[in-house]
């Protein structure tokens, strides 16, 4: 006959009596970071108050963007778990507590609940204090406070449950504490490693979304991510999912507690399989770190060295000995090495066919291509028609055909990024990201067709009819002060003049002249601002997005929404250049003063060494040609305006020399093959 008892009031009360200082410290930090900051007028008046409250109810503090809150949310649950389960780590305490009228379930549930209470009590008290302070200052809404309580509880519960699991599988306090923290970030860390491998070995792997995805693995990280993004704080349903996961983790910990061999207290890990897992994780982590960092330099040895270090460390820690020469360690070494080889091999050999996967256009609903289209930065254009989808797929295949031998060295000097996001008809998505040479894109037939596609031309021409107050702000990309003396660097256009400029821009864009911007020296940047009243943001978004697919809503000025769209103008944009010429805002390639010099660098390394540090007037030397006469500089600037990107392109820094040093340093891209013969010969004495 057995008596089922899940909870012991006596043990619960004693745990609270014994470990209340842990809660008290947590509460003290909460108080200093929250209510105290609000109540202290001297603090409230300085910048900290602004950063804490963010000026609005439910601001940064309630989004947990507060160092004190974040610290306690993470540290208190781990410390509380280690405290309440520390009896498992000593022979005397294990014997004493397990011989008392407490079943393992009673011990687990009671200790779990008392540890959780130690974490939650400071949160509840802090919430009450914040409510009182907030009510007085009208700083927070009840809803925002309620969400803070829910989110904070969720984080505490999750981090605590994971730490409890760590305490159950480990056998001494130091390892339990370290594991308590490590387990909370274990999934994220393994995820990052896998991303690292994929990025290093798989051509086209897109890792830009890694952070939002990885933060999902832990509510503490997710809260930080949400706080720093528009999301503000975790949603209620996020919390429910995390709470459910935490309960599952606690249940697993309870099961493990039932099978835990108490005689192994004091060992690093009390389950044999934990030693294997921890040992492998050490080898994997070190091998990954050294491999990803040093692979370019020393090849596969980078993985081997890291593996060896991680293996030895992992075995020492898990076995608690320096004597590693045993049959068991040799067995582990062989198993781990094979596993690591399998992991690296899977990525290096692309056994799952990741790279070669190009969707059949028949199966694609739509595809979004993010890249530089009009020079307005990286924007996505969505293609839905069959011919366009086929062109994207063809472009995708052409990119794959020019795959470099080694993925990790794919960043060409003159490159452009493209991200292809396919929405497939079966509901799945496929995303690839490539860095390709600008020259390749310029000669890519499928890409040219894409530029002339119905989606692109239709959207561009539609811009002519965009309604609202339109203003244009044009800037010479090559600063005026270095080119002429009687005009300004920027100018605004509006009304009829603005409409003429828009028509010129549209004509250049529709014939694809502007799209070669990433292969050309930019002459102007033009930003179009459209101001129009809408009933709400959704209506504004819908209207603006119908033009070219990516007019962004920039702001709301209290009456109207403002959309922005920008163009980059190169030497091919004939109509726009003619417009500027007629408007008296033309480009001149005539440097107007002898103070100007041009410095052409022979290599990227030379650029890196000099481009930002010309605090002296340089002289020609190996790898660096200095153009000090006005004629030479003018010819170089003209070559920069007209030349396209090629292997013979170099950066030229144009400096205004005053007081024995370069000021107003500005760089442009020039093709030395396009330079006049005498100038080219002069330059090539120093720059090959």
């Amino acid at each position, binding site marked *: 006959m*057995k008596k089922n008892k899940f909870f012991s009031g*006596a043990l619960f009360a004693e745990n609270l009596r014994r470990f209340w200082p842990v809660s008290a410290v947590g509460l003290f930090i909460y108080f200093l970071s929250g209510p105290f900051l609000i109540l202290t007028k001297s603090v409230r008046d300085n910048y900290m108050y602004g950063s804490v409250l963010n000026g609005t109810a439910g601001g940064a503090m309630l989004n947990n963007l507060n160092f004190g809150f974040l610290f306690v949310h993470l540290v208190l649950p781990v410390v509380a778990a280690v405290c309440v389960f520390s009896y498992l780590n000593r022979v*005397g305490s294990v*014997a*004493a507590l*397990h*011989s008392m009228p407490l079943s393992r*379930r009673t011990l687990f549930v009671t200790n779990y609940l008392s540890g959780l209470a130690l974490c939650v009590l400071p949160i509840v008290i802090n919430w009450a204090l914040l409510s009182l302070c907030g009510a007085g200052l009208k700083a927070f809404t009840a809803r925002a406070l309620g969400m803070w309580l829910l989110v904070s509880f969720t984080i505490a519960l999750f981090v605590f449950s994971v730490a409890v699991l760590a305490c159950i599988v480990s056998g001494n306090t130091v390892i339990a504490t370290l594991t308590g923290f490590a387990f909370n970030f274990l999934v994220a860390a393994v995820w990052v490693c896998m991303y690292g491998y994929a990025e290093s070995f798989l051509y086209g792997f897109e890792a830009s979304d890694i952070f939002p995805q990885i933060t999902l693995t832990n509510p503490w990280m997710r809260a930080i991510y949400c706080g720093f993004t528009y999301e503000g704080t975790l949603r209620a349903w996020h919390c429910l999912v995390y709470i459910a996961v935490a309960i599952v983790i606690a249940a697993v910990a309870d099961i493990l507690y039932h099978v835990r061999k*108490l*005689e192994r207290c004091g060992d690093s890990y009390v389950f044999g399989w934990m030693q294997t897992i921890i040992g492998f994780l050490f080898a994997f982590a070190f091998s990954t770190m050294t491999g990803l960092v040093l692979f370019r330099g020393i090849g596969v040895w980078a993985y081997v060295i890291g593996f060896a270090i991680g293996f030895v460390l992992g075995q020492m820690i898990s076995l608690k000995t320096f004597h590693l020469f045993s049959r068991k360690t040799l067995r582990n070494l062989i198993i781990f090495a094979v596993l690591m080889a399998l992991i690296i091999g899977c990525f290096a050999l692309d056994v799952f066919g990741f790279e070669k996967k190009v969707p059949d256009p028949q199966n694609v609903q739509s595809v979004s291509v993010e890249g530089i289209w009009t020079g307005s930065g990286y924007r996505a254009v969505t293609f839905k028609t069959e011919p366009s989808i086929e062109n994207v797929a063809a472009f995708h295949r052409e990119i794959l055909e020019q795959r470099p031998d080694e993925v990790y060295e794919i960043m060409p000097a003159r490159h452009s990024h493209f991200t292809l996001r396919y929405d497939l008809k079966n509901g799945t998505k496929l995303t690839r990201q490539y860095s390709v040479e600008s020259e390749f894109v310029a000669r890519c037939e499928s890409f040219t067709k894409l530029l002339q596609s119905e989606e692109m031309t239709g959207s561009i021409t539609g811009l002519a009819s965009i309604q609202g107050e339109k203003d244009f702000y044009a800037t010479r990309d090559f600063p005026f002060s270095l080119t002429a003396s009687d005009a300004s660097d920027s100018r605004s256009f509006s009304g009829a003049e603005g409409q003429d400029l828009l028509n010129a821009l549209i004509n250049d864009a529709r014939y694809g002249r502007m799209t070669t911007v990433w292969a050309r020296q930019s002459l102007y940047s033009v930003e179009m601002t459209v101001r129009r009243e809408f009933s709400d943001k959704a209506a504004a978004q819908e209207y603006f997005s119908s033009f070219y697919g990516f007019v962004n809503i920039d702001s709301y000025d209290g009456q109207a929404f403002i959309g922005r769209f920008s163009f980059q103008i190169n030497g091919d944009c004939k109509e726009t250049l003619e417009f500027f010429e007629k408007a008296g805002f033309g480009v001149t390639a005539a440097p107007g003063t002898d103070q100007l010099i041009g410095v052409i660098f022979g290599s990227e390394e030379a650029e890196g060494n000099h481009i930002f540090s010309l605090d002296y007037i340089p002289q020609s030397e190996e790898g660096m040609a200095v153009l000090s006469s006005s004629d030479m500089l003018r010819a170089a600037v003209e070559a920069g305006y007209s030349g396209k990107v090629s292997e013979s392109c170099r950066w030229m820094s144009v400096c205004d020399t005053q007081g024995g040093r370069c000021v107003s340093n500005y760089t442009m891209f020039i093709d030395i093959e396009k330079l006049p013969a005498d100038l080219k010969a002069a330059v090539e004495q120093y720059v090959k």
Partner: protein
Amino acid sequence: MIRTDDLVKSFGNVRALDGLSLHVEKGAVYGLTGVNGSGKTTLIKHLTGVMLPDSGSCTIDGMPVADNIIVKERMAYVPDELYFFGNYTLSGMRRFYKGLYPTWSDERYRQMAADFGLPENSRINRFSKGMQKQAQFLLSLSARPDVLILDEPIDGLDPIMRRKVWGWMLKDVADRQMTVLVSSHNLRELEGICDSVGIIDKGKLLFEGKLDDLKGKAAGLSLEELFFYEMGGEQA
């Protein structure tokens, strides 16, 4: 009352208990002895439900000990390695024991505390080893258990205190038929208080019987002589 059948427990390659079967009758004071590493403490940790056997069973009054609150509410354990909550006083531990044991007796606690003269409001971890042992006896016997299990209980106790401790314990045996299993190397002490003994070696019980029977069968051998005889020593 206390019974183990074919109890087996291994730690890695070491077989600490090797099919051990033991029987202790109700109201008996059973002395368990054996050389170092013979498996006494391992056996006791199975009897108190701290360890789980690889095979075999361990029961008290026919009920399994492991994870059984009903059995453990009637059992108290004085371990060799004592444990008290950090910074706790005797009265703090009293509160905890009182909350756990339904048979706890405040009267017994007061009587024993007065007899032992232990300071109730000083931290136990500042007590001497002997005083800590007294405190553990005080707490265990105040729980009024039906079964008392003692592992090297008299280590650190002076002769006067030993007599007091045995006195309180034997009073409960006489008054309430409390069953006691006591593990010790001190054979003379065991001979003085036990009515049954078991000699254990390499995880097996070499001898189990009543001391009275022993005197009859073994022609007046003392327990010490019997021990050496069973262990194969020349002194037997």
